[in-house]
């Protein structure tokens, strides 16, 4: 492998502007990880307008920093308040909060920071070695492979998202339909525009992402009543002791590997890997009963894994052009806005962007380690900022920000519309993530499908005769059909009464 471009990437990272935006990104990420309300996908969506004025590599360095920075920040609320700010820190609550109650909050935060740093760094090194291989392999992909890959990616993200699987797939279908609005690339016909000129060029990604993730989440949070947060004033003794480090060394090592591998899979990502790493440590432990009562490994393993996964989930995005989760879908949108289409050609055609972003993560992780150990007191104090004050500021940033993209009032109307849609979706148990992901991949999917059908001369069997697209589609069918089949089989012996029978058959479809 040629390491020249990798080294050039460091040159890109060390430019003062890029260093500055890396710092801004990780600080914002850490902040939103700590603060209640917005997750990384929402934050990145709201900041999309900011990225218009800056270089692509700088923009993505910042957005990536927000994403992995949030993994560090989520730990703090999990440990101190028993409130996981991010889904990927839920398991950290068990042992992290137990440690905090024993007066060892500092230990938990310290070991989480060290674990996150090691997990992140191991994952970047592995990414550096693996990504060019994946990209090289994917260079031969034609339209049929992309059709299969996009279908599988959307389905996997919908399958592992929270809430009902059926609802997530419905959300994805709506996203695919929204992507068809505007002029058809093949025939030039206008689709679903209702003779509205503003819709003729299709829906913009920015108002959709900002509305569904940003405004939707804020409106949804309005209905929630929270008691006053009782944050501890300060956290002592954050530097992990040698004994703690020795105890969790194995957990950190295994967490790094597990996180890296699971992060690559579409839909895998940080949440899944933190759960899997925790379960693995508990199974391996000589005294599993310690878990849940303040085992240091119980903090180290999931925090290491979620950070490793956050890093490696950039692989499918940057090498295949398939986002692995909702946040990656927003970053994908940001790249498209910048005129960069992520895919296998990115490594060879835009080495500066690719290696600049990848290598910036080393710097970002070092910055986050500094913020999580010596400066952690600062972020603990931020726990006192009230969501009620942040909400209107975020709303204004969204409304004004979306206007600045095209200087169009219609975009403000759109963002409000999608804000309401996002609110209703969350309210009724539909995750907005699959919708945004499907919207982003919609035109790629349709174009590849139509091109493939032209190649195959209208014979869909062609998809199955090519080895890669055939395998991917087989996996797709397996993932799509297995859960409903299994559910139906499980229910039959359990419910001998004929009452739910007609419903079962319908659900199989």
């Amino acid at each position, binding site marked *: 492998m040629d390491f020249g471009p990798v080294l050039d990437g460091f040159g890109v990272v060390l430019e003062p502007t890029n260093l500055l935006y890396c710092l801004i990104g990780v600080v914002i990420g850490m902040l939103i990880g700590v603060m209640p309300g917005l997750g990384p996908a929402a934050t990145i969506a709201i900041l999309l307008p900011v990225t218009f004025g800056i270089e692509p590599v700088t923009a993505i360095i910042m957005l990536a920093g927000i994403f992995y920075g949030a993994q560090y920040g989520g730990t703090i609320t999990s440990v101190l308040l028993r409130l996981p700010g991010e*889904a990927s820190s839920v398991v950290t609550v068990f042992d992290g909060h137990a440690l905090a109650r024993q007066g060892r909050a500092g230990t938990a935060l310290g070991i989480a920071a060290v674990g996150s740093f090691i997990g992140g760094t191991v994952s970047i090194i592995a990414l550096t070695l693996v990504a060019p291989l994946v990209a090289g392999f994917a260079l031969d992909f034609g339209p049929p492979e992309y059709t299969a890959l996009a279908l599988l990616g959307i389905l996997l993200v919908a399958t592992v998202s929270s809430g009902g699987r059926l609802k997530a*797939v419905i959300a994805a279908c709506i996203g*695919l339909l929204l992507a068809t609005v505007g002029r058809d690339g093949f025939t030039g016909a206008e689709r679903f525009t209702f003779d509205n000129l503003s819709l003729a060029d299709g829906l913009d990604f920015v108002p959709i992402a900002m509305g569904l993730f940003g405004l939707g989440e804020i409106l949804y949070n309005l*209905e*929630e009543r929270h008691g006053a947060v009782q944050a501890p004033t300060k956290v002592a003794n954050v530097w992990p002791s040698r004994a703690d480090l020795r105890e969790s060394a194995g957990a950190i090592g295994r967490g790094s590997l597990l996180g890296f591998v699971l992060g690559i899979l579409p839909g895998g990502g940080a949440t899944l890997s933190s759960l899997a790493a925790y379960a693995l440590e508990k199974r391996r432990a000589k005294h599993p*009963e310690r878990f849940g009562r303040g085992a240091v490994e119980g903090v180290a393993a999931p925090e290491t894994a979620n950070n490793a996964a956050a890093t490696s989930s950039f692989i499918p995005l940057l090498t295949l052009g398939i986002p692995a989760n909702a946040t990656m879908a927003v970053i994908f949108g940001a790249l498209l806005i910048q005129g960069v289409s992520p895919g296998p050609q990115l490594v060879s055609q835009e080495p500066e962007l690719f290696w600049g972003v990848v290598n910036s993560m080393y710097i970002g992780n070092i910055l986050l380690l500094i913020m999580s150990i010596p400066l952690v007191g600062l972020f603990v104090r931020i726990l006192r900022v009230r969501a009620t004050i942040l909400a209107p*500021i975020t*709303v204004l940033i969204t409304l004004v920000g979306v206007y600045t993209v095209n200087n169009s009032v219609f975009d403000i109307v759109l963002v409000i519309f999608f804000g309401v849609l996002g609110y209703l979706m969350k309210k*009724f148990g539909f995750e907005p993530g699959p919708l945004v992901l499907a919207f982003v991949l919609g035109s790629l999917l349709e174009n590849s499908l139509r091109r493939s059908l032209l190649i195959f001369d209208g014979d869909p069997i062609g998809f199955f005769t090519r080895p890669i697209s055939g395998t991917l589609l087989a996996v797709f069918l397996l993932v799509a059909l297995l859960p409903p089949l299994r559910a139906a089989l499980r229910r039959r012996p359990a419910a001998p009464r004929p009452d739910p029978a007609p419903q079962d058959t319908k659900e199989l479809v």
Partner: protein
Amino acid sequence: MAAGDTPRQAGEAALSGRTADEPHGGEPTLDELSLEEAIQRVEEVEHEGRPPAAGPLSNALIAAAVVALGIAALIGSARLGLGTVRSPESGTWPLLVSAVLVVLGLGLLATARRTTDAERFSGASWLVLAGLATMIGFVAVISIIGFEIPATLLTFVWLRFLGREGWRTSIVTSLAVVVAFYLVFVAALSVPIPHLF
């Protein structure tokens, strides 16, 4: 918030070989719960302030809305020209997607009685409507009188009435926020957002 089946099952498997012989206090520890239950508990606490789950009728209505949307999209796609597999037309792909949507919506309708992940509208939902009204007001007047006055009002309403902050905090914060926005967007970045001054 949580993830799919695989790690949870792995977690349960890992936790099944547990020993439950020691004494414990009021709060159940991890030993007595499977990982899945423990995660659910954490999430329940996080969602304590949320409205209760919606009834079967609402769930059926939601499913019906999905089906209706699917049918509308089906009709729309059919109008665009269906094409054939050999020569796909503009309507082919939307037709496929909306057909899947209809089928999935019917599946949702069939399982409506067992659905628990939708919430019902509560008294707090009026806050959402009020918040929405401020945004609509903002967009309605921005091109006529600029962003300053509607932005101040929006922030004030959100702070005082939606967030129940004190009068003084609300007034001072809303003015400060708008001044900051003016300085950043108009003075520093010269974004052409409609403004009074």
